């Protein structure tokens, strides 16, 4: 098969795009849940992803844990961090003007980034090889096992999350609070606890993405969460904010677009393309691809 042909290039870029997109999807899931429930763009979410990567790094290098336990430790650690941040910085801002809450979120994000720079230095850290990457060559298209792992993990976690949200009581509570917080309170739901749980779940997912990315790209640094965080938010919006499968879909779309723009146009306009998609979606289908139209009442 001619490795230079358009079809081949296209197929390879699809593989690249899907693996990139799965990472965005994992982060976007957390974003969409948090926004759905307290209507706040958690700017710090990308930094939780970074935090998760570092916790995983410490777990693997200092505590010598193998992959799966390290992943779980990282998810738990990030969940705790998410709960603490929500408790300290976001809960008091629930009734404050939106712009103040947004600034607080940005403040938390900068605090995490610069705090980490202070703590661990801006030098990138490398993950020790946790499993040897094996490369599969399918008719000239290159896929490696780590890409497959990321895609599979993202799918599994999304299924788990969907199960929790749709089939459990806790999930029902989350849906109730995101629909109408006051009414949920009247029905006896402890909204504070539900919100904390949401933050915990979202942060755990972001941490999982962080660890997987650390292994995949082999390097982590304190500023690694900025761009992926924003792109994941865009992914969540593209799919429909507050809708879980939407986040997954949005993530994959963002990954594919990025791969296509880099592969067929110019790599330097990747980020610009991501924002362009956001603006297009917001102008023509603001509730997202999977969203339903809700009229605003006065």
């Amino acid at each position, binding site marked *: 098969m001619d490795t230079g042909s358009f079809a081949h290039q296209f197929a390879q870029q699809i593989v690249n795009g899907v693996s990139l997109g799965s990472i965005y999807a994992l982060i976007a899931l957390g974003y969409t849940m948090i926004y759905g429930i307290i209507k706040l763009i958690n700017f710090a979410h990308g930094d939780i992803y970074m935090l998760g990567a570092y916790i995983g790094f410490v777990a693997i290098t200092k505590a010598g844990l193998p992959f799966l336990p390290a992943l779980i430790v990282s998810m738990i650690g990030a969940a705790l961090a998410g709960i603490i941040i929500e408790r300290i910085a976001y809960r008091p801002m629930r009734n*404050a003007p939106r*712009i103040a809450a947004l600034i607080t979120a940005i403040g938390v994000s*900068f605090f995490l980034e610069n705090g980490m720079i202070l703590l661990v230095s801006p030098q990138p850290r490398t993950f020790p090889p946790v499993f040897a990457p094996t490369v599969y060559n399918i008719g000239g298209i290159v896929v490696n096992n780590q890409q497959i792992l990321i895609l599979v993990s993202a799918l599994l976690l999304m299924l788990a999350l969907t199960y929790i949200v749709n089939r459990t009581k806790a999930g029902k509570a989350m849906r109730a609070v995101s629909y109408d917080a006051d009414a949920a309170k009247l029905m006896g739901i402890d909204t504070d606890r539900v919100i904390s749980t949401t933050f915990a779940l979202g942060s755990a997912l972001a941490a999982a993405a962080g660890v997987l990315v650390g292994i995949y790209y082999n390097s982590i640094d304190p500023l690694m969460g900025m761009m992926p965080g924003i792109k994941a938010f865009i992914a969540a919006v593209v799919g429909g904010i507050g809708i879980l499968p939407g986040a997954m879909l949005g993530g994959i779309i963002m990954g594919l677009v990025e791969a296509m723009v880099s592969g067929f146009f110019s790599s330097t306009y990747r980020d610009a393309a991501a924002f362009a998609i956001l603006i297009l979606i917001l*102008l023509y289908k603001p509730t997202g691809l999977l969203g339903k139209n809700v009229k605003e009442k006065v």
Partner: protein
Amino acid sequence: MKSLRQSLHKQDLLGLGLMVILFAVFYFLFDEEILDDYWETNVILILINIIMAVSLNLINGLTGQFSIGHAGFMAVGAYTSAIITVKLGMDFPIALIVATVSAAFLGFLIGMPTLRLNGDYLAIATLGLGEIIRIAILNIDYVGGASGFMGIPRLTTFPIAFWIMVFVVYFIKNFKNSADGRACLAIRENEIAAETMGINTTKYKVMAFTIGAGFAGTAGALFSHYYYIAHPASFTFMRSFDVLTMVVLGGLGSISGSISGAVLLTAISAALADYPEWRMVIYSIVLIVLMLNRPQGIFGNKELSLKMFQSIKLGGGSRGGTAQSE
């Protein structure tokens, strides 16, 4: 409302008089070298930041739109003015005008489609646009690309920066007190209600955005002509965020607030220069604490005014001031 107009008029003259005195004092200090270069650099930076903060306040505070990409407009002003003076060899006043107009024009182009969005979405969209502008500049070799635009002459002096700042502040103050300004306030308070009352919300939102962007361009021109260089690294999200912080710290909707915010934050940044790594961490902690405990900022949405002093004199003195609110 004759008495109101009279009292406003009196206040304007008083303010203007204060400005002249301030100018004379600082000019003397700089001229006689009592205040050294370091002071001059910081004072000019404060003046530029005041223009940025006040122009952003027009968009975020007065009209209630969430714009966090202000650095992009500053960049446009910085670069276009540099092209005028360096590449085309024209004078600084022309460069300033071109900077303001081009940034305003970009603001208009961007504002038209995106101001249909609201709240958080607009925030992310403006963030994205600020980044797109920066990335675009990074890739245009005519203006230096990643190396930046070097060799810009230092044409910004203290008098120029000072009086432009005064002009911008008065312009926006008068806008705020005009019918257009009140339309913007109405949009901020409740957009749907304003629309129902017959205010063309899109027109005023775009207007505010355009004017705000234009003055950011002016600030950008002053900036690049003071620091000898225009570089994409100076116009990142960090700068947009800095300006936003100044506005929120001072109080959204309050012009005196934006001025105070700009002065305070620039001074703090300079003061913390001895602790570089800690600076950002301290900055963010102070910001979070401030947001948690006084989210309305220093002035809330009220202005520094004679009434405020009068109420203090009368011994009643709650800090916020009375009738002179919007």
